[in-house]
């Protein structure tokens, strides 16, 4: 009754290749680690208020361009 289109071995091979390429692309960036700018940013924000302040400033700047 159920007509299932059989997924052949090659299809599986293609899928595994796609998965591999996707992870290779992604992991290449992950391996770059944490850029200094982000480490410094997190360090200098001592709480939500400080972050909200910067977000507010950014929004204002973005309004212009």
């Amino acid at each position, binding site marked *: 009754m159920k007509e299932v289109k059989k997924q052949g071995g090659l299809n599986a091979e293609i899928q595994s290749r796609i998965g591999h390429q*996707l992870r290779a692309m992604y992991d290449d960036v992950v391996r770059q680690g944490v850029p200094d700018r982000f480490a410094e940013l997190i360090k200098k924000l001592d709480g939500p208020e400080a972050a909200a302040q910067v977000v507010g400033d950014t929004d204002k700047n973005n309004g212009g361009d």
Partner: protein
Amino acid sequence: MPLTNQLRDDILASVPSLRAFAISLSGNGDRADDLVQETLLRAIANIDSFQPGSNLPAWLFTILRNLFRSDYRKRRREVEDAEGNYAKTLKTQPAQNAHLEFEEFRLALDKLPQDQREALILVGASGFSYEDAAAICGCAVGTIKSRVNRARSKLSALLYVDGADDFGPDNTVRAVIGGNS
């Protein structure tokens, strides 16, 4: 919860995968880093709404994804310059052949509808469960599954158009070069 040192460390530990997600979404390294920065600022500004013990990476990815979405709508036209920019973000340039294959993959990924692309990346590269990916995208688990499936079949159609009979590394590259863009 308050911004403890532990929480700072945990947020920082998510930065590499946040960047990878942002680059996969935007195809542009500079823009991706702006997205990550904005995500970190918003996360810390709203840290009180983070539930201790819940999934921090999923929470951060949700913020980034929503920022990307609203940003994307604003700057739709700029997206087209994604081509080639991705390679510049890499520290180690892949060897020539691998590089070509990589670029073709990147271009094929860019051709997917945004819903499908983000679902595929979250599940296939970031390693989130279907449930987490659904929470991040604000949709049903079944929707995520079907997006991932559609993304996979579309990618295989784009990259491996010649089908099963012709499948092989050389044909892969040839099909893509002579391909139907």
